[in-house]
Every structure is written in structure tokens, then in C-alpha cells.
């Protein structure tokens, strides 16, 4: 459950961007399908980690980024569910991962009280 540690990082990153007394209403995240992180586990841990902070009760909006890759042989791009998935067109592997590894806090919405 390293999602607890990640949820704590999310809380710290968001708090560093607001004045004390502000209330953070929403947090937008990008979680890639190949990041090794379960978005639902982040949601579960976030609620607990946000307690007693400017993020208490904030809504978490998770943008799940699909894993995409490019084949080094036939140059086609396609979706992958795992880093070791072969090219669906010519069965080559490894393939070049283009997206899906990210874990980012992209945006927050704040109520300045």
C-alpha cells in the first residue's frame, strides 16, 4: 500500500500552493495505467490523509491515462495494458512506451476564505 505515502505527498504538494486558511475544493490527478499505482487505492487513502488539512472533504478527480506504445519495427502506435505487451500488429517486443507512466497533481480549485 504505497498509495498511503503517495496520498500524503499529494496533500503536501497541494498545501504548498495555497495560503493558510484557504480551502481546497477539488484536486485533479493524472494517474497512468503503467505507473504501478491503483487509482482506487489513492482515493481510499486520500480521504484519510486529507483529514485536518486544507484538503479535508476535497473532491479527488482522477484522470486515468491510458498506456500507449509505439512499435520499433512496424512503427504503429497502440494501447498497452502492461509494459511488456507485444506489438499487436507484428508481435514485436519490447515496444517504446509513449504514455501511461505518469503520476501527477495537475490542478486544484481553491476557495479563498
Amino acid at each position, binding site marked *: 500500500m504505497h498509495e498511503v505515502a503517495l496520498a500524503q505527498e499529494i496533500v503536501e504538494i497541494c498545501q504548498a500552493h495555497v495560503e493558510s486558511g484557504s480551502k481546497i475544493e477539488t484536486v485533479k490527478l493524472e494517474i497512468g495505467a503503467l505507473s504501478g499505482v491503483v487509482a482506487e487505492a489513492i482515493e481510499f487513502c486520500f480521504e484519510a490523509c486529507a483529514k485536518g488539512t486544507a484538503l479535508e472533504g476535497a473532491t479527488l478527480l482522477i484522470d486515468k491515462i491510458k498506456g500507449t506504445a509505439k512499435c520499433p519495427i512496424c512503427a504503429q502506435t497502440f494501447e498497452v495494458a502492461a*509494459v511488456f505487451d507485444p506489438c499487436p500488429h507484428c508481435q514485436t517486443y519490447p515496444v517504446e512506451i509513449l504514455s501511461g507512466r505518469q503520476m501527477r497533481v495537475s490542478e486544484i480549485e*481553491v476557495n479563498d476564505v
Partner: protein
Amino acid sequence: MCNTCGCNPNHSHAHAHDHPAPRKKITIEQDILSKNNSLAKTNRALFKKHQIFALNLVSSPGSGKTALLEKTLRELSAKTRFAVIEGDQQTDNDAQRIAKTGVPVHQINTGAGCHLDAHGIAHALDHFDLKNLDVLFIENVGNLVCPATFDLGEHHKVAVLSVTEGEDKPLKYPTMFENSDVMLLNKIDLLPYLDFDVKKCKEFAKRVNPKIKIFEISVKTGAGMSTWYEWLAQEAREI
């Protein structure tokens, strides 16, 4: 202006709806692991400054990481100055085992935590004389999932996989094997008693990470240990 009634929210009058407080959007675009990665960078700079070769040993519990370290330290510490950071949720059992080899050791207990992070390593480094150190082993918490995500500043992750675990572990836990530069296939003395398919296991590891180096070893009998020692000596020289 209020979207519901068109009034100015700064004046006061009695009506039946609340004015929502104005919301401000703030763009952040920050990696969730940015703090850990920045501390890992600091650790890496410290290793470079003192010419320390740092390895992060990762595996499931019971693969033989501590036994591997005990044997490696006993056989090589006459010529190389080692130190060990031990990571476990509880107990200092492993640190006690390492201490018996005479090598400096520091135990980190993560409590409920399932992995070591760069912050914990930075503090653990205070316990060693870095000027008189050649190789640092970090024995991570036994777990094939979480330690894969956290850079500690090490030169390489070394995954230890024992043949009692099943040959498909690299496919089941791909992030760990993708992020490791070496896989030590341990306990090969037990192969005659198991259905473990070594060829398949290597193929699975290479599928996840084509560059991974694989050494077949038995810490118990000493088989293959020289290949691991040679890699260690060579890589430590090249930093």
C-alpha cells in the same frame, strides 16, 4: 455577479439562496514523487562525492537477501569497505545478523510502511563514516510491489528471486523487474526438488526488461556466487 439572481454578492440582502464563494483554479503539474526524487538526487550526489557504489536489494520476503549479504560481506570485506542499511517493518533481527559479520549496519523500521524512501536513506547515511566506505547495500522491505516506485539514489536495483517462488514473478510484478538492472536467481540448489523452469523465468524477466543481467546462484552452496562478485567488483570500479 451572482449567476442565480444577478445580484452583487458584496451587498447584503435577505434571500433564500447562498452565494457560492469564488473558486480559484491553480495549475500545479507536479509529479507526485517529486519530493522523493529530489531527495534521491541529493543521496546520489552524496554517493558520487564519496565514490560510494550503492545497491538497492529488492525481493519478496524470504528470497534470501540477508543471507546473500551475510555471505558476500564475509567473503569480500577483507578487501572492500561495506556498510548496510536494513529495512523492515519491525525488529532489528536482520541488522543483528549483519552486525555479526563486523560490517557497519543501520536498521530502519518502517512500521506500517511497505517500502524505504529517499528521506529515510538520507537520515540513515548520518550513521556511517562515508569517507571510509566503498559499497553500500540497502536491503529494502521484502515486497515486490511498493519498493519498485521509490528511487533511493542507488546506482542499481538488484532483484533477488528464489526458485521456490515460481518462474512467472517477473510477469506478475513487472515494475520491479523492469526497474532492476540485475536479477539474482537464488536457491538453485533446490532445483532438483522443484518444477521451477529456469529458462522460462529468464525469458519472462527479459521480456519485461531486455537489458536485465541474470546470475544463477545458491547462497547456501556458493554456486554461481563468483559471477555476482565479479559483477559487483567491476561495477564498483566503474562509478
